């Protein structure tokens, strides 16, 4: 009685499901074991009790309802189990449950395999059922109702076809009046419904992920719907939340459509590619396995006063920030451990180098990363050299043969998502804007600027604060690298949440949940030894394999950037290595790496960061020691030195290809409340330099974090670029 299988034998013995040998064995067992006999008796009594349970009758005849429901599904073009939820009787009892149809066929001997014994009659049987009198009667009724609806439908002019108004008379003259508008309406309705569903799904997944919106054609008159639903010109500025929702709502942008190809098609994680923020969030989600970091998670509207320009403008032709899925593609390597700061600003301000001033005032030196902003593939894409039709309203037009599609290379519109993506590129880099931008080399990214820096928390916070204070900046969002606690704190800062004392739990800031890293996950899947997985994880955190790190540390001589005659500091080289985030990209881009310009990691002398006092450097536990770059503290510099350092007009055309050179300012004593503030030259921390302001003399070493500023231009009706377009 102690062996469980023996008990099972008793139960099977009771049911007569034992073989002859087992039955003999159990008989012998029962003859000697009273407990076994008692168990059999209990099982027998239980079985008798259950068998004597009164049957539960079904009070209705299901046959008719079953046949009606089945025929409805047969007639439906895309049968789904939910169709049967409402029975034709409409009595509420017709609900059925959705179930996978494959279960009906099963995978067993009666599964839907082609080898049959009974012989399926697929064609004739289905045809016979479809031509049954009941089906024909339903079909006749349906056709009759459809004809009646057609006759009672409103005139075709009322259908949503406003963009095609000029061609409407000719179409109506050639075609029946009731066919074309219905087709158009059906298409529009379907897409609108799909867009709404997609919007809801996206909002459910990422509460702040913004859908892709395609601007209406600037040259064509707005459709009546747009005129009706356009935001009021002089309306009060909405609240923060409504601002956010209205901003991305279809209601005030009726022709806007989200990108149908979301995460699954674009392959950038779960967030999809509905805008760049979502795309980056998707990458982040893919890397970190976290939700909630898509879109603009750290949007900060608190510093904004008044409505955004597109709402304040009298002409509702403002262009919203468009999706830039290509950016996420380009930034696929910039995911791990990078604080991404999204910033939508006026196009004129972007071209006017407003951000340069902000960076300088935040004591952040920088270089433009050519690998990010000027990829040859983008520049050589013939798409940007063709056509002037920069706006395509209808998603289907991008995939159909038409004027808009003609401007797109065929290889780029092999699918709907590709067509949309190509259109976005087109939208980002129209020839008109490129011309308006002065023929810069980086014309495809003229509406976009990427600035990759490494900075201390104080510097980052200073930049965020400065961005929030600029009127030209409409929106600032922060996406943290959730494995770096300091960046989480910066996220709270970006959200304008109060900064609690160090060590306290910050309200409203959800700590990043523990998550398995990709390395460990892959180790689990592939059964890689733990040591190898840990090593791989360490490599990935550092962004470069250990065995290759020494190679990457060898600094190439910067040709013409930075400080002439000075080799980059060691820490600079390490910082550059950190930019490469995966071993694969290290190997892939090693050649390009060797000639690139290192990212400056030291502070410029200049004004102290406004929030430097609140940004006491905290040691992130997950930050490897190699990632902590010796960044000297800063001290204030005279404002005139800053003004000299910043050229508002931007670098001259004949300047270095890296269009931003770190402005320098002379050392100047200033009263800085931070005792550790010390102005150093960027090259002073070279071991061989030994200058008096060397960073090695500073007792405090602040960690530097990688920050990618994604600057996106928001074109308004009065922006210089749009004026140039028109």
């Amino acid at each position, binding site marked *: 009685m102690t062996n469980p299988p023996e008990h099972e034998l008793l139960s099977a013995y009771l049911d007569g499901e034992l073989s002859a040998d087992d039955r003999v064995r159990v008989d012998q067992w029962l003859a000697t074991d009273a407990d076994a006999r008692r168990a059999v008796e209990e099982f027998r009594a239980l079985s008798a*009790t259950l068998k004597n349970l009164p*049957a539960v009758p079904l009070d209705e*005849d299901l*046959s008719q309802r079953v046949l009606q*429901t089945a025929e409805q599904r*047969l007639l439906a073009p895309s049968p789904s189990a939910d169709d049967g939820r409402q029975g034709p009787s409409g009595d509420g009892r017709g609900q059925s*449950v959705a*179930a996978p149809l494959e279960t009906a066929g099963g995978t067993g001997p009666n599964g839907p395999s082609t080898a049959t014994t009974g012989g399926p009659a697929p064609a004739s049987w289905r045809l016979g059922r479809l031509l049954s009198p009941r089906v024909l009667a339903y079909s006749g009724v349906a056709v009759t109702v459809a004809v009646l609806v057609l006759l009672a439908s409103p005139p075709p002019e009322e259908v949503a076809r406003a963009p095609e108004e000029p061609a409407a008379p000719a179409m109506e003259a050639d075609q029946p009046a009731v066919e074309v508008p219905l087709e158009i309406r059906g298409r529009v309705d379907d897409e609108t419904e799909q867009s709404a569903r997609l919007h809801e799904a996206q909002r459910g997944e990422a509460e702040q992920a913004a859908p892709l919106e395609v601007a209406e054609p600037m040259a064509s008159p707005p459709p009546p719907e747009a005129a009706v639903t356009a935001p009021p010109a002089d309306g009060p500025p909405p609240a923060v939340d409504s601002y956010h929702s209205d901003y991305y709502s279809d209601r005030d942008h009726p022709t806007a459509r989200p990108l149908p190809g979301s995460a699954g098609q674009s392959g950038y994680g779960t967030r999809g590619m509905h805008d760049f923020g979502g795309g980056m969030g998707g990458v982040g989600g893919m890397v970190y396995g976290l939700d909630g970091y898509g879109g603009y998670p750290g949007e900060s509207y608190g510093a904004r006063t008044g409505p955004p320009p597109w709402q304040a403008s009298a002409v509702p032709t403002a262009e919203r920030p468009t999706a830039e899925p290509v950016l996420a593609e380009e930034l696929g390597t910039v995911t791990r451990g990078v604080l991404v700061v999204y910033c939508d600003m006026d196009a004129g301000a972007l071209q006017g180098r407003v951000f340069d001033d902000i960076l300088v005032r935040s004591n952040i030196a920088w270089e433009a990363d050519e690998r990010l902003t000027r990829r040859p593939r983008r520049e050589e894409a013939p798409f940007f050299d063709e056509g002037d039709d920069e706006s395509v309203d209808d998603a289907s037009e991008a995939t159909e043969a038409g004027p808009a599609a003609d401007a797109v290379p065929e290889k780029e519109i092999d699918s709907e998502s590709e067509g949309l993506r190509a259109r976005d590129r087109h939208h980002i880099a129209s020839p008109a804007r490129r011309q308006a931008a002065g023929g810069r080399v980086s014309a495809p990214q003229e509406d976009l600027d990427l600035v990759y820096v490494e900075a201390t928390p104080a510097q980052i916070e200073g930049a965020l604060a400065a961005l929030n204070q600029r009127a030209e900046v409409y929106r600032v969002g922060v996406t943290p690298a959730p494995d770096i606690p300091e960046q989480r704190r910066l996220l709270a800062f970006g959200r304008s949440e109060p900064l609690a004392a160090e060590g306290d739990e910050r309200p409203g800031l959800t700590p990043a949940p523990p998550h398995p890293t990709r390395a460990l996950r892959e180790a689990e899947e592939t059964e890689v030894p733990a040591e190898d997985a840990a090593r791989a994880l360490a490599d990935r955190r550092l962004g470069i394999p250990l065995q290759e790190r020494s190679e990457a540390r060898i600094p190439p001589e910067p040709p013409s950037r930075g400080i002439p005659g000075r080799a980059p500091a060691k820490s600079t080289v390490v910082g550059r290595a950190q930019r490469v985030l995966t071993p694969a990209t290290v190997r892939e881009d090693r050649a390009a790496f060797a000639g690139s310009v290192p990212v400056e990691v030291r502070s410029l002398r200049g004004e102290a960061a406004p929030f430097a006092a609140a940004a006491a450097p905290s040691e992130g536990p997950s930050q490897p020691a190699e990632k902590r770059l010796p960044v000297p503290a800063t001290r204030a510099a005279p404002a005139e030195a800053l003004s000299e350092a910043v050229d508002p007009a931007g670098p001259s055309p004949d300047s270095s290809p890296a269009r931003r050179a770190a402005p320098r300012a002379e050392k100047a004593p200033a009263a800085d409340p931070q005792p550790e503030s010390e102005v150093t030259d960027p090259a002073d921390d070279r071991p061989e330099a030994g200058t008096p302001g060397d960073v090695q003399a500073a007792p405090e070493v602040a960690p530097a974090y990688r920050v990618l500023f994604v600057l996106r231009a928001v074109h308004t009706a009065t922006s210089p670029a749009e004026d140039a377009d028109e």
Partner: protein
Amino acid sequence: MNDDAELIQECLSGRSAAFGSLVQKYQDRLYNTIVHVSGSRDDASDIVQEAFVQAFLKLETFQQSSAFYTWLYRIAFNVAITHHRRRRPLGSLDHLREQSGQEVVDRSGGPVEALERTERVGQIREAIAALGDEHRSVLVLREIEGCCYETIADILQIPVGTVRSRLHRARAELREQLREMLPIDKP
């Protein structure tokens, strides 16, 4: 060729009414089984209807290597699983009786005896509903439906050994819950 096969052939040849005969033939039996699996009369009705609908739609894939009711039960249990995942938690028949006022009334014997019997039936059904899904399905198919082990394995797509072990555990668990109720001579 048995009756089921004839009806199936008629249905496949275009006479849908033949399938109605199959529905009428098996609906009560299937419903009585599913109502113990789902623990809800309404859910059982929906599941049974959906099972028949899917059987009708997939009838051409039925290869008749097993009995029609086995195939039908397999569909019904899959539908029940899907339904169960969507509508947790299951309610017991007793719970549903309290909500809807419907109950199976055993009218045999006197009023007191009928009441006691009804109460006892309710307790048994509650105990069945308290079983795990896997154990409950096997138990119901065996004790309520009277299926053999092989049929149960065919319906649930599990090995016969698994059927035996699950059935034994279900019985053991149910015996513990209904020990006082079972007509067994106390030692």
